[in-house]
């Protein structure tokens, strides 16, 4: 593939990222065309799901949170001025909503537990970092990867979870919401990947394909 010789612009169609397409879809939505946005919702929902879940939100709540983010997105359609900020807007909103939801969930559970209402069925205090159902990881290779991933620091798990579900050129936008400076993002991502890889390399059962 040829790269545009003269300083390729952000709008270069051949290099269009998910973020760019989301921006176009939002433009189309403003003009009353809903199909492009539907495609983007389908494509980006897994990323938002992983963003929300990596913040320690239970599955039921995460379901609501992701729907709420999309609603907030179209409600804000008129105010998102920079089309290239669309992906960042979505991810930041998802993370913020997840914080609020998990904070609220923990507060409510704590209050309920403190009151000890006998009529209420006992509620579990949601785990700050709920573990997904590990039992479903059956293939040994997947199990090794999952164990290595689970052993990483939380920050690394969050970042890699974003990165695994994002188009590569969108890393910048996604990384901006992890709370790090833009320049340290690539480094941190690389460091987390390196940690994961060395954990896998240390296991003689692991083989690269």
């Amino acid at each position, binding site marked *: 593939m040829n790269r545009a010789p003269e300083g390729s612009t952000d709008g270069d169609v051949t290099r269009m990222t998910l973020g760019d397409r989301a921006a176009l879809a939002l433009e189309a939505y403003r003009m009353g065309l809903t199909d492009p946005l539907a495609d983007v919702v389908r494509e980006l929902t897994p990323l938002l799901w992983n963003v929300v879940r990596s913040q320690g939100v239970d599955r039921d709540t995460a379901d609501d949170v992701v729907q709420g983010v999309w609603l907030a997105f179209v409600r804000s359609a008129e105010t998102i001025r920079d089309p290239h900020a669309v992906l960042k807007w979505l991810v930041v909103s998802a993370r913020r909503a997840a914080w609020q939801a998990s904070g609220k969930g923990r507060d409510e559970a704590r209050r309920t537990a403190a009151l000890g209402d006998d009529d209420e069925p006992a509620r579990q205090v949601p785990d700050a970092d709920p573990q997904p159902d590990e039992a479903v990881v059956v293939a040994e290779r997947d199990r090794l990867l999952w164990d290595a991933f689970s052993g990483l620091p939380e920050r690394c798990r969050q970042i890699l979870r974003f990165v*695994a579900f994002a188009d590569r050129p969108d890393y910048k936008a996604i990384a901006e919401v992890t709370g790090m400076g833009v320049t340290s993002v690539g480094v941190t991502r*690389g460091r987390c990947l390196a940690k994961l890889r060395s954990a896998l390399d240390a296991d003689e059962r692991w083989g690269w394909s």
Partner: protein
Amino acid sequence: MTDADDDRTGHDAAEPSDTDGAAGELLDARDEEVLADLARVLTTVDPVPEGLADRALFALTLERLRADVLELEQVLTPELVARSHDAEREMVRVSTITFASEPVTVMVNLSQSASGGLCIDGWVAPADSYRVELYRPGGHVATDSDEDGAFVLLDVPRGAACLALRRSDGTGPTVCTPVIEL
């Protein structure tokens, strides 16, 4: 494909890219492999709930309908009035429902259709021919009423849905019902 071939551009050898932003680090083949595997494992371990994107799109459709139509209000029967305080989000499970707003009233009757879905018999007043659309998570169907305002939607899946109606000649407003649980 061997890793030796693909592993030549390791982290240190990676050239800064003008489009990769951030620190310009490129991913080598093993990074790509481990990320692809990780995405797959996460999808297995913590899958996106089935239909989540469809439910989100349904919520967006409702939002859009609400934005530019006149919303019909459910005409409450006495036993439902007690539950009406949260009527906007609450889904009611009844077999005959009437909705009304200033220009339009629609009554729908739900029955089991032979194929397992629901049959929706509806009647719109004042009598006219209407375009009737039913929106639900994962799709929408449309039909036209006859000149007396009667319409039938066959084999509608159960679940959340709302109806939007407008006169076939394009005059008058579009109206839509609140979400009902079929």
